[in-house]
């Protein structure tokens, strides 16, 4: 029995193992989600800073980010809202030059006046905006209460952020009050 790790037999075995590993990994990840790019935009552009990872938004200290789960906006309307922001609210515009070189809601900066929405910290290209709209449509709009699977899909499993969604897991505030 050769102790040489470079033996052809070992090499073939190793290759087989790698091949199986790759196939397994591919299988467990299922087919790639076409809206993963949009999810990345949702994170990078800090959509979840106000709308939260689950999209429900909510009141609190920073005014009221609308619920993307309960939204009735169409793809086109989501694209416009992200591009131009929502005048008179804290929803920022994400298109470079909005209200200047690019008209928004048929307004320029002057027309918008004190209704001018804030400028986002990150500008997004048209393709990014469409991707994030597709992500919202596929994973958030129309969904019910957020659950553990959705949470893990968003954060991965390196954080304890999703623990409260585990079935029969941690006490909720409501449970605490019983």
């Amino acid at each position, binding site marked *: 029995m050769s102790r040489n790790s470079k033996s052809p037999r070992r090499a073939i075995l190793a290759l087989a193992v790698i091949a199986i590993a790759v196939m397994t990994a591919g299988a467990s990840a299922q087919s790639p989600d076409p809206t993963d790019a949009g999810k990345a935009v949702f994170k990078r552009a*800090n959509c*979840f*800073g*106000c709308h*939260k*990872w689950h999209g*429900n938004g*909510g*009141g*609190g*200290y*920073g*005014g*009221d980010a609308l619920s993307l789960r309960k939204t009735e906006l169409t793809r086109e309307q989501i694209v416009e809202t992200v591009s131009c922001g929502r005048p008179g609210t804290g929803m920022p515009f994400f298109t470079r030059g909005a209200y200047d070189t690019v008209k928004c809601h048929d307004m320029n900066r002057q027309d918008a006046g004190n209704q001018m929405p804030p400028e986002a*910290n990150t500008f997004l290209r048209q393709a990014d905006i469409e991707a994030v709209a597709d992500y919202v449509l596929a994973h958030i709009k129309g969904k019910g209460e957020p659950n553990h699977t959705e949470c893990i899909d968003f*954060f991965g499993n390196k*954080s*304890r*952020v999703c*623990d*409260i969604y585990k079935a029969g897991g*941690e*006490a*909720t*505030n*409501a449970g*605490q*009050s019983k």
Partner: protein
Amino acid sequence: MRKHAKRRPSLQAAMLASAAAVALIVAAPSRADEVTPERLLNAEKEPGNWLHHHKNFSATRFSTLSDINKGNVKNLKVAWTMHLGGVEGGGIWTHGGLEGTPIVENGMMYVTDGWGSVYKIDAHGGKGVLLWKMDPKTDHDWAGAVACCGVDNRGVALWGNLVVSHTLDGRLIATNKDTGQVAWQRQVADPNKGEVITGAPLIVKDMAITGVAGAEYGIRGWIAATDLKTEKEVWRTHTIPGKGEPGSETWKDDKNASASGGGSTWVTGSYDPATNTLIWGVGNPGPDWDNEYRPGDNLYTDSSLALDADTGKIKWHYQHTPNDPYDYDSVAENVLVDVPGPNGTTAKLALEADRNGFAYAIDRTTGKFVWGLPFVKKVTWTKGLDAETGKPIEYDSNKPVQVYNASVTPSRQNKVTDICPGNMGGKNWPPTAYNPQLKLWYIPVIESCNRITVEEATPDKLKAREFWTGGGPSQPVKITGSITAIDVTTGKVAGKHETPFPNLGGILATPDLVFSGEPSGEVTAIDAKSMEKLWEFNTGGGVNAPPMTFSVDGKQYIAILVGLGGAWDKWFIDATPELKRIQPGSMLYVFAL
């Protein structure tokens, strides 16, 4: 276990011995540097050190060091600086900030960044040398998603040979002072319930006292004591009484509102050794703005609480804003001072500058009101305090839901309304300072109004890790600031140094100077009596932390952390549009003559 490991000679230790010879010389004095309860009691006998978060158990933040004084402060210059980390975001936050007070012991400085990394810096020789960094690997998403008001950590405490600190994700961590290795840690708060920790621990005897944040997320607040020898909890006192306990009758609803009633404790308190009493501020009730959800006075929210340090048993309370509909929490530090009273007596006071815009002096032996006055320029929610009780004049103990000045008070009937001070308060967490020689108390002031929009709270809206506020603020009004001095012998305003921006950092007092910083970047020194500005240096960042002073090698220094973060940056920035220019940062500045 750890002691055993220390005694056991190991091969590794032997191999390292010669190489570590130089290090051992540096480390050797650390045995003499054991921080004993006696040293913590007598912190004032070590004028060059800053051993407690608030400098001393009385929380005066007054240093007797006077080599830097009003005659020469104009010559103050940067001695050294150090870039820190922790600026990254997490949860709902795009970046961290710095709100900590450095601790200095025998020339060694200990600071934290917003995510709770601890840095030990050797400040000898006119320079700063980073000796170690302990990164607690805080769970950013878990904690950052339920931190209402920023990625913050206000600093460490020292005990024995340990550096004791908190993390946003709810841990108490004991780190070996010499090596920077974590000795042990325990989970004290639970982010799954919306609990996080931002405050520095207070060490009393052999206990670390921990406060909690989360009143915007439906927590039921507490103060907890951990035995640093056994690493176990000694007591935990909830700031909202359980069913049947005294005070539970002040929650008159039928929805079990007290179970998610808030009352957080996220600012480090003070301690009176003479009576073995902790005095700790308690935060707002939840939901913040819908007080009809929780009829009754809602004890012990918006109160100063006195507790027996050994048992956590409540000795007395003083509530400032019963059935609060404004988010006027009373989480601020109580400053313990003794001043001459009538007929040759000594008045033993606890001073608190409340979010509601009034400064209070309470008899800290009995918990009775002594005096109170507005320290902000504009108060609209009440006409003033009752001279006997200190309660707002409009307070009616027979009413389950208080309306105070009903025309401005947020309620289900008055859903959009402007209040002064705004909900960030006349003073927030940034600490006051008290000069015992001048008997002047300096308050870092937010001269503010803001707009509250009420949203009726219903039990189905109460969800773990989600906001539980019953509405929210917006900022249609420009907000400025001041440092306001109060003469504690008279209970009157003695002076006001106005500033273009709110004071978000806090105060340091020395015999003839007052140091502070501006969120626009300036660190300033003002004359303790005239309140005139004598010196300033623009750090180029945003000051969101209090200055402190220490001496090493016989030389006095002023230190301050610079890095705008916290609540202002996200929630209140529209009230100070110029501050939108300030970039996130994470830096330590140290000044000397």
